[in-house]
């Protein structure tokens, strides 16, 4: 044999890695397909009515998720409208104004919000937020403290740390030379932030908001506890806000509720629940995909791993 000829050597690691990756991919794909397959009966039964129907009454096999989609949308909208400005403000402070020591302290403090499990948020919502909302809404004569608004408020605090961290990263990725050039022209620090840093960090900030939205869409337990879980609360007038302060239902609160167990026996009901889960996946998927695209735009097509391994 020639001295340098290649001989066959079993590449255990490569094979087991490939196996591992393949198994994971296959499992995920199978799970997705299974969801789709199990949801087919309800689409056969109601077609697109699953999305557009306003009523949900399973004893009579009426499956319309529009009220839930509306609830999900309202809850997420409230959460975003509150969380994004607050998070952006906090990020501007930590990224643009604070020296390294206090910056780390503030960032860590806010990140502690992320370490609290969602069920504990739900607990705080039940025992505190509910009362506050009820008292605060007294002029409007609310039914109870459980409402879409309450869930939105709670969610806002839950997604705050995620958005703050990502906005901070986005702002820090704008090169310091740009800010220095602006300052050198006589612009104030605030003007450098407003006219240089924020515009250039905009894609990253938008991605942060989208990721926050994705989290808000998928949150179950906390929303479940304070949203009221009332079906069919679709307001006649889309601009009326009464539905916001009344109990409502979101996709996640329905899925997390007792109906999932009840549906176990009835194939059509079961398939309707799976259909809801698929809808949820779809909405979250769109958010994540958009955020992913924006993040890539921010990094301008560089592979972070390839960069780190020069």
């Amino acid at each position, binding site marked *: 044999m020639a001295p340098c000829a290649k001989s066959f050597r079993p590449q255990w690691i490569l094979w087991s890695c490939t196996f*591992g990756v393949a198994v*994971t991919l296959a499992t995920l794909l199978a*799970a997705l397909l299974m969801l789709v397959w199990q949801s087919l009966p309800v689409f056969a039964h109601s077609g697109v009515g699953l999305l557009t129907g306003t009523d949900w009454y399973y004893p009579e096999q009426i499956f319309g998720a529009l009220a839930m989609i509306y609830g999900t949308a309202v809850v997420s909208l409230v959460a975003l409208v509150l969380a994004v400005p607050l998070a952006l403000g906090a990020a501007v402070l930590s990224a*643009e104004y604070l020296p390294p020591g206090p910056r780390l302290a503030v960032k860590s403090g806010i990140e502690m919000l992320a370490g609290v499990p969602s069920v504990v948020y739900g607990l705080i919502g039940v025992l505190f937020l509910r009362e506050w909302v009820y008292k605060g809404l007294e002029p409007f004569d609310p039914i109870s403290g459980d409402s879409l608004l309450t869930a939105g408020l709670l969610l806002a605090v839950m997604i705050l740390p995620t958005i703050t961290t990502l906005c901070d990263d986005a702002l820090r990725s704008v090169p310091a030379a740009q800010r220095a050039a602006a300052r050198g022209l006589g612009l104030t620090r605030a*003007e450098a932030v407003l006219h240089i840093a924020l515009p250039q960090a905009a894609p990253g900030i938008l991605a942060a908001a989208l*990721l926050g939205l994705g989290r808000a869409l998928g949150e179950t337990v906390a929303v479940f506890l304070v949203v009221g879980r009332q079906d069919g609360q679709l307001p006649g007038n889309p601009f009326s806000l009464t539905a916001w302060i009344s109990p409502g239902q979101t996709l996640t609160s329905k899925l*997390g509720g007792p109906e*999932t167990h009840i549906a176990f026996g009835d194939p059509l009901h079961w398939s309707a629940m799976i259909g809801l889960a698929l809808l949820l996946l779809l909405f979250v998927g769109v958010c994540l995909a958009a955020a*992913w695209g924006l993040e890539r735009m921010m990094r301008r097509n560089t592979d972070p791993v390839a960069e780190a391994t020069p």
Partner: protein
Amino acid sequence: MTASRRLIRFLLPSIAALCAMFALTAVIFILGVLLVRGLGSIDWAFLTSDTRSAGAEGGILYQILGTLILIATALAVAAPPALAIGLTRVVFLRSRPRAARVVDALLHALNGIPSIVFGILGLLIFLKFFDWGKSWLAGGILLGVMILPTLTVSLVERLAAVPRKYIEAAVGLGLTREQIITAVWLPQSWSGLLTGSLLGLARAAGETAPILFVTAVFSGATLPTGIRDNPVLALPYHVFVLAQDSFNDDARANLWGAALVLVLLVACFNLAALPLRLNLHEESRHV
């Protein structure tokens, strides 16, 4: 300078500071409430005795044990694929940026899947198809899949930070790729897997939705003896159930205690991961 410029120069940092203060106030409130209301109920007896009277009396021993069993299972389920995917992403796909981006995207996607969807899938697979009844293993597997991205991303970060000079030296010595993996890549990256594991354990400990349908019960379970029809108690589920029903004041005190224990457990894991995270960019140890 015009008055409006001066105004903005003052307003921007002031508003930013207010926002940050709001967030920090929320943190202090949540932690404060937990400590004030929960600390009183926690003592050795609380942590080591069984629950009685639907949570009004007794302790949370089996809830703690159940949670520990679940997260240990989750780690065991998640670690091998995390290792496989991590190595693939950094070592084997180095020359294929497009495939690498696909892997990144998939991890991103997996990380974003709502936890209730995992619960539903579990119901579908473990209850409907496998007919396991409520099982601790089902919950463990679901949690494992859920924390897979956490472990993998942490490992990938660490692997990517291995200095190229070590790889080149190994190549120069004539080592095969497999040998380089065992001699250079892996020894330098254990901390990444460890960090990821701690973060994953923290995340798994706090999750309710995945275990809602297929694993947790509120009472009646102690330690599992088999797989099928062997539910466990779990801290998040315990808090979840008690938060919904009306209960008396004793139960409420214990409820805060349980919530505090849960938060402390999660915090322990997160804090344990901190030193490793802060040292991510230090020079690697010699092989």
